[in-house]
């Protein structure tokens, strides 16, 4: 079976779009689109059209009207809005079936209210000579051709696939395998036979009213009723455990998200402090730099004047017109103390003494100009040497500022990214508190404890019941009045025994076949081929993955690996089923790193090709551009896929389809 056309009207962001999957490349379709372009809602349109549900809607959207807000606002009050999804299915026998579901809404106060239940119709288009015929019971037609129980193995959300084995119990795996292999028919027969045996037992007992038989029958009835009550309780508890597991997984995800959020918030605070401290450092470095600038600016701007004045002074020194810049009072002091600045005794060194006296004479004979120039000299020299000395300070400050700025820029980039992530995470809403998880864990523990008790009670009751039934049957076998009914009972018991044997044989056969195929498919997809030893499905239908060291590693598989296991499971189920249903997968590689993508893509392409005793399985992949990268394109090239592209038109608030 293939989906050849899909037409959508007024379904969420689809106002009016027609998908045409006919043509040579009809077996492998790739629909690309960015987030929000309508990929997941494409999956929802199929789910809604076939089964009247929206299994892939995010929780927040589940209660929203199917009609988009824009369609509502464009309509007038009291207007009727029709949502319709039509599918053309090309069946294995060449006929085409047109499946269509529509729902009517009425606009009132800017809200679209559904005014009647959605209506399903199926028209089978025979060849030209026979025309078409509408199915009187379209729901039955769907159940026969696309059974609802197979939906989980036909329509996939890749982002949720990783939870396939985490959330679903072995019971679900068993149900899937048995349903898809149609072995469950035998199980149903067993159930009918058990009911028949029960009735025959009662009928036989009613034929003979002797006290012993009646007492034995009463005992059987009491025990049967007790067992039925425990079975019912066990079933309810199992259901409760499944619900708890689903809720638990949801809360666990939320808590992980919350923990990541808390780590981000902590990091944000830390970064904010670091940025604050760095900004203070930078500001201080700038203040020092400004101080450096202010201190040196006069000498810097007036450098030519300083150099010219020092040149003039130096010229006068050379001409002997200007003595060294030593003050007169200092020279007088030296002569009076008789000690030179170099420490030598001036009284014992006439030459040095004369030199000082000569300097004093020159100082005293300096004119006004000489005195001015001499007074300027030490200050001007000071300016120049401070200017040269400031170079080191400048270099240190400049380096400090450049380093701080670089670091600040890096921190700001990280900070901005973190803020964005925190804001996105906050917009997902507050997750459930840890106490919710604890409450669920407590409930799970209580349910597990009770289920253990119930199972133990059931074992005891079953054993008592068996013995009571044996006793009853012995009495009945001796009763002439109950003989005819007893023979029927014996026959029914033999039939049940045979049926149970066949069921066990067939389910084992199917289980082993699924195990073989899941093992082959998984190993083809997985990138750690040398690490994985085998995939097993045991008698209780518990899936396990073993490494070459002999360890069971299912719980340690990454999200991507779990996704591969889910694909492998679906492909294995496809391999044993009598249906050739299409496979529609939204964001198949969304949670996978780039490494395994080509392997998984190649395996999907190869496993759904026509093969020995196998028709082509149509595959429709809904991917973002990031997922459909060059490596994936190459891996899928052998199937010559048909490429279509979704684009959300902001202006008209609708999805548009383009042949890519």
């Amino acid at each position, binding site marked *: 079976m293939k989906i050849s056309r899909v037409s959508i009207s007024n379904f969420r962001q689809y106002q009016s779009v027609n998908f045409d999957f006919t043509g040579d490349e009809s077996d492998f379709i790739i629909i690309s689109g960015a987030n929000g372009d309508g990929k997941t809602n494409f999956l929802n349109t199929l789910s809604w059209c076939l089964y009247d549900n929206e299994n892939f809607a995010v929780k927040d959207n589940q209660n929203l009207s199917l009609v988009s807000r824009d369609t509502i606002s464009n309509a007038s009050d009291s207007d009727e809005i029709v949502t319709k999804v039509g599918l053309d299915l090309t069946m294995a026998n060449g006929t085409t079936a047109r499946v269509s579901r529509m729902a009517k809404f009425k606009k009132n106060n800017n809200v679209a209210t559904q005014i009647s239940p959605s209506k399903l119709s199926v028209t089978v288009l025979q060849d030209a000579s026979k025309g078409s015929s509408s199915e009187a019971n379209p729901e039955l037609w769907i159940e026969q051709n696309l059974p609802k129980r197979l939906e989980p193995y036909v329509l996939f959300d890749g982002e949720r696939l990783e939870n396939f084995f985490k959330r679903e119990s072995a019971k679900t795996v068993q149900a899937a395998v048995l349903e898809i292999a149609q072995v469950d028919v035998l199980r149903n027969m067993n159930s009918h036979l058990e009911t028949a045996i029960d009735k025959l037992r009662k009928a036989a007992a009613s034929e003979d009213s002797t006290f012993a038989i009646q007492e034995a029958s009463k005992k059987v009835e009491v025990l049967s009723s007790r067992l039925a009550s425990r079975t019912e309780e066990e079933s309810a508890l199992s259901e409760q455990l499944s619900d708890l597991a689903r809720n638990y997984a949801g809360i666990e995800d939320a808590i992980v998200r919350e923990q990541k959020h808390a780590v981000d918030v902590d990091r944000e605070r830390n970064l904010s402090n670091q940025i604050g401290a760095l900004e203070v450092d930078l500001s201080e470095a*700038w*203040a020092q*730099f*400004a*101080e*450096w*600038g*202010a*201190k*040196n*600016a*006069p*000498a*810097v*701007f*007036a*450098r*030519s*004047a*300083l150099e*010219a*004045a020092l040149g*003039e002074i130096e010229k006068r020194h050379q001409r002997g017109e200007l003595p060294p810049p030593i003050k007169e009072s200092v020279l007088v002091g030296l002569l009076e103390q008789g000690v030179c600045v170099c420490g030598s005794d001036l009284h014992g060194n006439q030459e040095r003494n004369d030199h000082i006296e000569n300097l004093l004479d020159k100082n005293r004979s300096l004119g*006004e*100009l000489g005195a*001015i*120039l001499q*007074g*300027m000299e030490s*200050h*001007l020299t*000071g*300016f120049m040497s401070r200017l040269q000395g400031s170079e080191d300070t*400048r270099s240190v400050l*400049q380096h400090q*500022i*450049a380093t701080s700025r670089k670091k600040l820029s890096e921190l700001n980039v990280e900070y901005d990214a973190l803020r964005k992530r925190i804001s996105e995470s906050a917009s997902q809403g507050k997750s459930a508190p840890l106490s919710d998880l604890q409450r669920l864990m407590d409930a799970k523990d209580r349910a597990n404890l009770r289920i253990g008790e119930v199972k133990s009670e059931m074992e005891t009751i079953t054993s008592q019941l068996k013995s009571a039934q044996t006793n009853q049957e012995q009495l009945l076998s001796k009763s002439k009045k109950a003989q005819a009914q007893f023979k029927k009972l014996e026959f029914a018991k033999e039939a049940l025994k045979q049926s149970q044997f066949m069921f066990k044989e067939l389910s084992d056969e199917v289980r082993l076949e699924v195990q073989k195929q899941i093992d082959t498919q998984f190993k083809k997809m997985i990138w750690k081929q040398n690490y994985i030893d085998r995939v097993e499905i045991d008698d209780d239908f518990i899936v396990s993955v073993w490494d070459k060291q002999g360890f069971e590693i299912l719980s340690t598989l990454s999200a991507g690996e779990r996704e591969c296991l889910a694909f492998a499971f679906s492909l294995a189920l496809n391999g044993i089923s009598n249906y050739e249903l299409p496979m529609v997968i939204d964001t198949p590689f969304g949670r996978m790193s780039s490494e395994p993508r080509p392997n998984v893509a190649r395996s999907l392409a190869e496993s759904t090709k026509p093969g020995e005793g196998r028709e082509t399985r149509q595959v429709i992949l809904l991917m973002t551009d990031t997922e459909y990268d060059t490596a994936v394109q190459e891996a899928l090239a052998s199937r010559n896929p048909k490429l279509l592209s979704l684009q959300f038109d902001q202006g008209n608030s609708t999805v548009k389809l383009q042949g890519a």
Partner: protein
Amino acid sequence: MAIDSPLLAFGVDSIPKYDYLNDSVFGGSLTNKGLFLIALAYGFKNKLLVADYKKSTTGPRTELEEQDFALMSAIQLAHTSDSNSLKDIKGRNELAQQFAEGGIRALYEWLMDQNRRDPKGDFIGLVLRELNLDSQN
């Protein structure tokens, strides 16, 4: 220690400019003397002598020291190219005030005209360029 405190008057119209320069570039950390010397040297560097302006008679007063007078004298010598001019203290002070007036006006214009977002950084860049050092800011 201030050895002389002549009233080196700023132009009346320029007093707000000194305030702006001090606030925006130096965060109010500079003294009147610091600002005056920067303006003086900048005015000298760019040959901006403003002779005709109305001086403030009430302040602000600069507390100058020997080294500051030495700088003023070096500028006086460079401007006149005559050593004897150094004897003219009043002339030195007047010349310094005129260059400072030219300098403060030009610095203010430069900061305002460019509508600078980072006056402090730009001023330091100006000093660095004068030192033939590329600004790495």
